[in-house]
């Protein structure tokens, strides 16, 4: 039985919960927003929202250090959009001017709003080799992109122009887009497979 903690300080956390609730047969999906809840779960979802807001709420609740430690120790984690920004090690000018301190769980650098403002947000069919042949219907909302990866991080999905929009590093999957808004559950299933085989090892 697994317990998945969806970070629920701000953003689209209910959307992740809803998808995972349908997929998890032996286990439960819980919201975490207090420090003491972090030790209680096997894996994490860091949802989309506003990265500057979520970062401040992590600090206000003393969540930053224990969350970063659990992820570094190998707790399977899926991060989308703002969540992916926070997991990166290096940020662009927007990250720096807003004094956003990143968790540094990924060997990757991130560019916020890499495609522009909301009017440039888009849906597309995205090739995700790890999910098999069918492209994934991906929704990008004021989305970030990974500027670079190194060390243990591997690009997991790219747009046709080469932009890295998904990165995997061991038990961590970070995505620019929002699988929780798509009707296709394959990305969440892929994340759950990390909990099945990654937890003990």
């Amino acid at each position, binding site marked *: 039985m697994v317990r998945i903690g969806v970070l629920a300080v*701000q*953003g689209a956390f209910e959307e992740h919960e809803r998808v995972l609730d349908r997929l998890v047969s032996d286990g439960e999906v819980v919201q975490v927003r207090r420090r003491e809840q972090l030790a209680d779960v096997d894996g994490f979802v860091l949802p989309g929202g506003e990265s500057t807001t979520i970062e401040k709420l992590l600090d206000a609740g003393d969540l930053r250090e224990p969350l970063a430690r659990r992820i570094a120790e190998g707790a399977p984690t899926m991060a989308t959009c703002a969540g992916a920004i926070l997991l990166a090690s290096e940020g662009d000018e927007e990250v720096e001017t807003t004094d956003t301190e990143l968790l540094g769980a990924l060997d990757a650098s991130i560019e916020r709003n890499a495609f522009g403002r909301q*009017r440039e947000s888009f849906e597309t069919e995205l090739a995700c080799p790890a999910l098999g042949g069918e492209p994934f219907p991906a929704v990008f909302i004021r989305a970030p992109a990974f500027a670079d990866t190194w060390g243990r991080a591997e690009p997991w999905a790219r747009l*046709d122009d080469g932009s890295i929009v998904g990165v995997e590093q061991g038990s961590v999957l970070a995505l620019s887009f929002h699988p929780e808004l798509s009707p296709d559950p394959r990305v969440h299933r892929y994340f759950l497979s990390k909990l099945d085989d990654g937890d003990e090892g």
Partner: protein
Amino acid sequence: MGQNLDIEELRHGTDLVKRGFARMQKGGVVMDVTTPEEARVAEEAGAVAVMALERVPADLRAEGGVARMSSPEVIEQILDTVTIPVMAKARIGHSVEAQLLEELGVDMIDESEVLTPADPFFHIDKQDFDVPFVCGATNLGEAVRRIYEGAAMIRTKGEAGTGNIVEAVRHRRLMQDAIDRLDEMGKDELYELAEHYAEPFHQLQHSAREEQGLEREGQGEAIFAGETGEEITEGLFDVLVEIRREGRLPVVDFAAGGIATPADASLMMQLGNDGVFVGSGIFKSQDPEPRARAIVEATTHFDEADRVVDVSKGLGSAMSGQNVEAMDEEEKLQARGT
């Protein structure tokens, strides 16, 4: 799998992209700001977005006159200052103000009763835009009409600029009660409700026929966004079916109008809203910065009284506020645009 962007199709401005933007705002606080400095304070306090304005509602109310879209310069300065989304207000029915805001690059347009309405008959056809819209509603009927017109987010109207939460609570309660009632309705009853909710769309025809001394309105003519009366009713019916299935609005549903304290924000979250707009409540208070931070935390931790107590300390005085019951009906902004 293609090898360049010409092959990969990027679809902009879809319902999913517009409603998805609003979903990313959930659990957050959108703050009214009038200068780049205020915008920076809001961003540093943890706002999920700012609403760029020339004057906050309390000042618009005090000054009277016609309230219009803010000047492009004010909006551009704020767009250039912050990294979080920027929203701005267009007058109800003023599709050209909305086109200008889309052109300027704002991330969401508030078709707002806080400004003086521009069209006495219709709201903006929001399906026509790639940028998402938020609209106010005092009850379920208004919300259903706005969602049918393409709104990606609904907010209570409350009574803006008063610092008084009572109208936002009224609108939230009326909305939820009406949603709960849908459960008891059969298909025919739901269709009758859609017909009832469609009535405001016929107002122009009624007025024009009356002026011509004609009794019957034309059949099958397009009324709004190229749709006939029957098509509008069908559209409203579809929205109602979705609301009944979900037990809530199918779009994000924020509180707005009169939120002045962290406890106000927590109250609206406990009543089921997805997040809050704070207009005059921050920059009309004694000490905006800590109040802004406190309202952000009280929105996240809305059901943890210990946290809300902590953040409510040392904030100085809230905006003074106004008793809505003592106001004349024509002073109330919430009656605009039904």
